[in-house]
């Protein structure tokens, strides 16, 4: 049963990837993710590849900041019903272009930390790298249950200026999101 479900998941994932790859070159993708236990805290390391579409790049260069959301969830696996979400947190990043400095800046909206990068690639790399990110306290996890973590990154359309939003909702170029990436915990 589980094998079947896993297979189905895999199939769906592959289909989604294929679709994403076929439909447009741009997109987000979680390359790898893994958690480890460190001093009683589950910490996440992950790498996400952001590839912006033409429209998004154009907007960025024209002074429109882009906001990326990273949703992280920890789920308790259950046999017969859907998995229970134990913890869920969202990291928001804002990518903006500073014309005076000719630099790209990445702002962590959760902390307010701002960092400038001379190139877009460097900025996207920095934004896509999660190191020792604390997810939850290990004491919240029951030792007998099996857990899994999952992760995805999406472009937040609601954070765009309002005139762009209807277009962004309708256009595929703006629908930038990675599928859920699941790793065992």
């Amino acid at each position: 049963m589980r094998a079947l479900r896993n297979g189905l998941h895999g199939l769906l994932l592959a289909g989604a990837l294929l679709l994403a790859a076929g439909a447009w070159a741009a997109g987000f993708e979680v390359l790898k993710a893994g958690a480890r236990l460190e001093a009683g805290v589950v910490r996440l390391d992950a790498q996400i590849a952001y590839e912006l579409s033409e429209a998004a790049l154009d907007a960025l260069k024209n002074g429109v900041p882009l906001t990326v959301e990273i949703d992280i969830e920890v789920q308790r696996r259950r046999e017969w019903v859907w998995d229970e979400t134990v913890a869920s947190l969202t990291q928001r990043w804002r990518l903006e272009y500073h014309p005076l400095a000719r630099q790209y800046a990445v702002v962590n909206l959760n902390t307010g930390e701002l960092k400038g990068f001379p190139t877009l690639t460097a900025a996207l790399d920095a934004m896509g790298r999660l190191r020792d990110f604390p997810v939850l306290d290990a004491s919240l996890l029951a030792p007998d249950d099996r857990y899994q973590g999952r992760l995805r990154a999406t472009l937040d359309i609601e954070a765009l200026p309002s005139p762009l939003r209807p277009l962004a909702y309708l256009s595929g170029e703006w629908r930038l999101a990675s599928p859920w990436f699941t790793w065992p915990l």
Partner: protein
Amino acid sequence: MRKHRPFGRGFAAISILTALLLVALFQLTRATEDSGRFSELYSVLLVVCGLGFVGLALQIGRSLIQLARQVRAHEPGSRLTLRLVVMFVAIAVAPVGIVYYFSLRFLERSIDSWFDVRVEKALDDALELSRTALDLKMREVLQQTVRLGVQLADAGAAITPLLVAELRNESDASELTVMSFSGTVLAVDSFETSSAASIAPERPDEAVLAQVRQGRDYVSLDPTQLGFQLRAVVRIPSGAAIGEDGILQALYPVPGRFSTLGRSVQSAYDAYKELVYLREPLKVSFKLILSLVLLVGCLAALSAAVHAARKLVAPVSDLAEGTRAVAAGQYDQQLPQGPEDELGFLVESFNAMTRALAQARDAALTSQRMVESQRAYLETVLARLSSGVLTLDSSGAPRTYNAAAMQILAMDPAHPDVRDDNSPLKHLLEAVAEYLASDSAEWRQEVTLFAPGGRRVLMCRGSRLPEVIGLKAGHVLVFDDITTLVQAERDAAWTEVARRLAHEIKNPLTPIQLAAERIRHKYLDKLGEEDGRVLDRGTHTIVQQVAAMKEMVDAFNDYARAPQLKLVSVPLNDFVTEVLYLYRGYPAGVELALELDPAGPLIEADKGRLRQLLHNVVKNAIEAIRDGHGSRLAIATRVNPEGAPDCVELSFHDDGPGFPEGSVGNVFEPYVTTKPKGTGLGLAIVKKIVEEHGGLIRAENPPEGGARIAIRFPTRPGGDHRPVPGLPASLTHSEEAG
């Protein structure tokens, strides 16, 4: 009246929906301008507006479909409603369309007017100027950093941290970091010594490090949370102190004035750039909202048009329905109160009209009922009259007659044929024709008619009708059948005559006879043979004639006498057989045939009188048969003959010549005789006896020939021997009255 108006509620819903939509659209406009706090709700507002719009469209579509269905079903008022709706919409849409068109034009123009090439150029130039200014500063900073690097190159590894701190204090730098060539931090000194930044210095990007390693110094303007900072990364040349080349990173704050101005320029540039970029989407958004507002306005106008048209037409359709109802004869329908205008006045007038109509109809109905009941009353009275009533029109043709008239005139109630020339009615009209022709207002006349039942004597009174109420001066005839009355009077007169005759004539007869006999006895011997013969013949004649007279007087006596009846129960069959025993063996050449009812009827009768009755009838019949060369007399008894229950019929039927034509009705009157001899009292006495017994006698010439006398005795003595037939209770109109 149909008062089903679901549109009021629908219209309220549409109104509320429209108001909400307009509010939402207003907020949407504010959100588009990105100025309000509704910016975050933009998408939600858009979805809400879309849904509201769809709901509004559905609601209005429903009412339009309903209207279309009503038009197709030809409901009253629906076509007028449709026309009004079309008119309203046409009136509303044209100006709205024009306003829409110009609004779109103005929208394009005004958004385009935000952008100016010169402004754009000025902003670009301002940015460039800022960069140039900062570039000078950066060059300066780089030179300073290179100098610092040279100073550090001479220092040994041990004193490097101290030197770094010293150098930082001396220079403008906010942070100095010395790194190994591979990027490991060797020493750091920060303006904020105690802050976390000193512990974890900002590492330059890997690409920067690579550039520096290749010997190219790096300087950049970095954005920070607060504004800008300058970053210079140089290679520390290898000296005695350090075995290999190092890397120095120095961070400098941008002087306050530069920072403020730079930020200001950048934000203005950013905002303008964004605005230019968003120009088209912004236009689309505004157009979308404008179109939504237009559509909502149009839909609201349409809905209001439907509602207003229905409201306007409602009294008209009520009137149409009411008119139909009145045309169909329903006057008791009142329309609901209309609005306070000309339509309302019309509705009020219509109601007043129907009320008046209803009252008129009720009055007509009442009077008609009164006339009907009076007529019915009159008819009943006329039907119960024993007198016949007949009305004639001005030409003398019968118009109406009552049941008694029909009975007296022997008309068939089912098919009263007034044109039959031989009918009694015709005879009656002929008899009174001279009165009808004359001018006399009233007259009376006794008329004798020959009806199938015999001669009838009518007392007829007539009077001319006045020339009013559409009768055209006809006549009304009232007549009574007085046949029986006349008969009774005649019988009574005869009885009196007979009694007197008997009394006055019989007294002198005996002296005459005695005197004649005495004369004969005394003078027969004394006279000679010749005279004696004359005397003998004379006295003989006298005696003989006196005897005959006596006989006649006795007969009169019999007729006049009303003896006390001694009624006993008589078995009629036995009694008839016994009495007629005398006539057995054809005493006069006539065969007597008895046809007796086996039921053996009993009647209450006086035997002597009954015997006399039988003798009289049979004798009379035999004489008639003998004269007429007949040979047979049938005597029959029958219990309950048809048409006459509770009675016994005794009938005599011969095959003689029958009663003479015209005298069938009065064969029972005294001195009506056809025979050469006889007193003419035989059948009169028979009738008298029958009547003494409460019976009925009748003479007729049956169609099969001969004569027939039928006598009916009641089986219940004292009872009503002659049941009066029920009279039909309707006045019959003749078919050809006019």
